[in-house]
């Protein structure tokens, strides 16, 4: 219980992170496709397709409105799916975690490395999307470069949540539940494709109180629009605070699952 398991984290977690980085880079041609293709598809279909009907949201063109949401969604998907399905495959099928904990690494090192890697993947994807969005003229430079540093805490948050589900899932199929019941609704209702302000007041409170993606979209939109308000400070603190909380829960749940 000492310091919630934090005292068991060592530099070894970086070796776990590098293992995943090496595996990612081995197939980088495939891995680098989504961040280039996804924003193009979304912008064409939603930004310019649906956008042709909508014209403007709060005085802003629709493609410009959804651009920061696209980055937020990519950040969410990449770390959440990395730390659920991919982590589960490493943990259960490949026995990679078993091999690791037979070395000086602790369970906490392994989990920390996995979460750091999930966040890194989010950050890589956010970074790669920026030039694409810039070429479409839907984000401004250089302020939009701030999307990159914010992808780190946002990625950590979704990675930690993902690991929590991985730690309690009975099997890989059951990971579909959080994917469909948690991630997909969030993808639609977090101020991504329409502003949260059109929701009833209570739902707005709910979104900013409980939905990670709503807080992330809010910050990213402030970055690309260059408009900051006190709400943004709240969103940032929420992402960091809740991320830290889920990190501790992830360590605890994984320790319980992996200790024999």
């Amino acid at each position, binding site marked *: 219980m000492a310091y919630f398991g934090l005292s068991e984290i060592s530099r070894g977690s970086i070796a776990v992170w590098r293992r995943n980085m090496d595996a990612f880079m081995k197939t980088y041609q495939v891995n680098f496709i989504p961040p280039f293709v996804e924003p193009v598809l979304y912008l064409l279909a939603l930004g310019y397709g649906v956008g042709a009907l909508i014209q403007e949201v709060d005085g802003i063109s629709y493609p410009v409105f959804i651009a920061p949401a696209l980055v937020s969604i990519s950040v969410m998907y990449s770390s959440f799916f990395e730390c659920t399905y991919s982590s589960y495959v490493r943990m259960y099928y490949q026995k990679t975690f078993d091999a690791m904990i037979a070395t*000086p690494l602790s369970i906490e090192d392994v989990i920390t490395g996995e979460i750091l890697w999930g966040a890194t993947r989010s950050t890589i994807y956010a970074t790669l999307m920026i030039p694409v969005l810039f070429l479409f003229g839907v984000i401004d430079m250089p302020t939009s470069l701030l999307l990159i540093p914010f992808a780190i805490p946002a990625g950590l948050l979704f990675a930690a949540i993902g690991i929590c589900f991985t730690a309690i899932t009975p099997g890989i199929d059951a990971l579909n539940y959080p994917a469909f019941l948690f991630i997909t609704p969030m993808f639609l209702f977090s101020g991504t494709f329409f502003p949260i302000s059109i929701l009833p007041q209570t739902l707005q409170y709910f979104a900013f109180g409980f939905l990670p993606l709503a807080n992330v979209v809010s910050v990213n939109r402030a970055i690309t629009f260059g408009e900051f308000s006190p709400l943004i400070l709240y969103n940032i603190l929420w992402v960091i605070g809740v991320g830290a909380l889920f990190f501790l829960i992830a360590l605890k749940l994984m320790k319980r699952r992996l200790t024999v």
Partner: protein
Amino acid sequence: MDVISATALRKRFGNLVAVDGINFSVYEGEIFGFLGPNGAGKTTVMKMVHCVSRRTSGDLFVFGMDAESHPREIKQRLGVVPQENNHDPDFSAFMNLTVYARYFGIQKRLAEERADELLDFMQLSEKRDVPVETLSGGMKRRLIIARALMNNPELLILDEPTIGLDPQARHLIWEKLRHLRSTGCTLVMTTHYLDEAARLCDRLVIMDQGKILVEGSPKELVREHAGTDIVEANATPDVIACLETAGVVFETFGDIIQVQTGTPQKIVSALMESCRLENVTVRRATLEDVFLKLTGRTLRE
């Protein structure tokens, strides 16, 4: 100082007692074996020794350190060959070794040199850069052994190291394990191949249902529990009746009878004369006889 010392070591999984209060010591520089039927608790003991499984009660010291409180220090100095291969399928053989070395904090240059040495040692150099998934079962096993040696361990734990290997590969591994012993490495292994245990182990224990039944060198154990020779014949009713009248102590195992003896020639001639037996064989007693005698012949679930 003993490399491993366990006192009243116990491990419970829910209601199941997998390891039931065992005592053993492993001395520096020896090969120490754990034998026992499926489910005896061998793997559980190995896992407690390499600190991935926590004991329920008792004491367990490795390198003089408590396994409970010093897992990192202990794991830094030992190598593990798990019962189930768990190489990293995303990498080549070479990368499997170097990535693993990073978990020990070994510098890149050193790790790469060592990886090439060990691939050579395990005769895998030709497979250096191929994806591990394309290796044969025996090659994968050798790679796992090479991986366990990356940190130059003082203690090597091998859980069925030669499982599923062809005779050539097994001989290669035996030779390598003896070589490691000659360099001062201590080895602890489990195996179901009793000839392997007899050849390799300086001392061994036979476990069953979580308990240690006997401990000793393979020779001692055979002498104490199986005598020197075994006379075997088909277990026909005639033979059994004849042996009973002759007053010879024998045991029946399925369709054969066995007589343990120090004077096989006498028994054989007596049997041939008075019972007119035809299919009589005489062989040296082996560890297998000891094993079957102590753990029974019924199959474990």
